[in-house]
């Protein structure tokens, strides 16, 4: 199970906020999913290496030749707030 405090803690880590109604729904939903995935703890896989990629590849190199990338104009073209070719964000506290 996952407690209300844990849900709120994870939400902070994920930069998400939920209102009371959402929390009331989310906590049991996550609880049920976690209960389901907990079945993996029954498996003894201690002797196995974890797989991060199913088709193993090591040391993939490419030629280090400079090629043109996006222009500054293109790179910022989708920014919600842009000034002088730069992204503008609210102040930090």
């Amino acid at each position: 199970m996952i407690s209300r405090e844990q849900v709120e803690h994870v939400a902070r880590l994920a930069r998400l906020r939920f209102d009371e109604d959402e929390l009331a729904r989310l906590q049991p939903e996550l609880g049920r999913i976690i209960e389901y995935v907990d079945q993996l703890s029954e498996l003894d896989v201690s002797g196995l290496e974890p797989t991060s990629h199913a088709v193993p590849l090591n040391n993939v190199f490419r030629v280090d030749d400079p090629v043109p990338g996006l222009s500054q104009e293109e790179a910022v073209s989708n920014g919600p707030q842009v000034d002088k070719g730069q992204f503008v964000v609210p102040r930090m506290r």
Partner: protein
Amino acid sequence: MASLDVTGLSAHSCRELLAVGDVSAVELTQAYLDRISAVDGEVQAYLLVDGEGALAAAEAVDAKPKDKRLPWEGVPIGLKDVLCVKGMETTCASRILKGYRPPYDATAIAKLREAGLIFLGKLNMDEFAMGSSTENSAYQVTRNPWDLDRVPGGSSGGSAACVAAAEAPWALGSDTGGSIRQPASLCGVVGLKPTYGAVSRYGLVAFASSLDQIGPVTRDVTDAAALLDLVAGRDPRDATTTGLNEPVGVPGRADLKGLHFGIIKEYLGEASEPGVREVFSAAVATIEALGGKCEEVSLPSVERGVAAYYLIAPSEASSNLARFDGVRYGYRTEHSEDLYDMYVRTRSEGFGDEVKRRIMLGTYALSAGYYDAYYAQAQRTRTLIIQDFDQAFGKFDYLISPTSPTVAFKIGERTADPLAMYLSDLCTIPVNLAGLPGISLPAGHSDGLPVGLQIVGPHFSERGLLDAAYAVEQELKVDVVAPLGGAR
């Protein structure tokens, strides 16, 4: 030309029509745009139709002399909205990417552009490809062309519905846990998830990077092979690509003599509904009639696939989706007190419920104190699943199962229970975890709704896999165009 009936056209028949000059690229494109106008009000497969751009591209093809054209030049295609197309709005069916116009093409898109294909528009999907019904789109609900009260499957539901409704001869989708094969099965079309690394993921908006693959949704196996050859290849911009060992070419196998098929035992019996089992048994009989040898095989670990997937995929997603912060693209909240508050409001307002659920799950699984119990345990289970497949492929050439345990379900039927929705991908998920190629073929119908046959091969076995699928397809002769009201 009065009006070209596109409902009978595969992509390779479009190509033939263009080659003999029976039809111009503009006429062909216009015929698909007309078809979209006629039926998409009901089906709702397209998020965006770029009629103007498509016709301009078709005009450019017509202006070229025939002997200067590439083989597929002038053939239209629909694109899942998870693929970046330069200058064309790409939203992933999410509010958080509303208005985003990529400044570059995905590698797969650049290849299709180079080959001269005509982009009809962007297709609906579950938000960020998270879902099995396309109901998680922030914009619209796509309907199954076989029964408009039912879902098309997901997440590439728009791609599958559009091909089944003949709103494009073929389409591109993406598959992380079944997102090409399951909707292809539910809409009665062909869907192929290539081997991990066959197709570049550059410009595919990332969901779970170790599982995501781009692949074709088509009316027949011949088109699936052609579209795979068009988009596959090593790409310096995606270091995980290897491309295919050899082009697939045109499949043409007439029988299955000498091939050994393993029927995955864990997906038989109660795992699938009776109507699906019936169609699947008939498909097995067809494979045997073609000379293939079929035998049951047990892969015990596949039953843990869904559990492992719902730790691995959300973990990767929680990291990938951290980039949506209201700074560089897409949606930003109207009012915020400071930077942190802007992040939180933007993400909370911009993401839908399922995406938030998975970000929460993934963040939880990766957080301090839980990493070993959840994420690492899931990765070790993944190793176990790979070992089971390796062992099976020691004896069998291909493994078969139903693609989906059920036919298309009713719209709204599973939205209240996330876990029930996750189990829709029971048969497809382990294939992604092991990075294998898998195809869903229309195998027949149960109460008028399509049922798919999944065939899975070893890594990079696409050529043989599609050849075998072709033989089965020729024998099964399943009608792929949905009997959409009156339009036929």
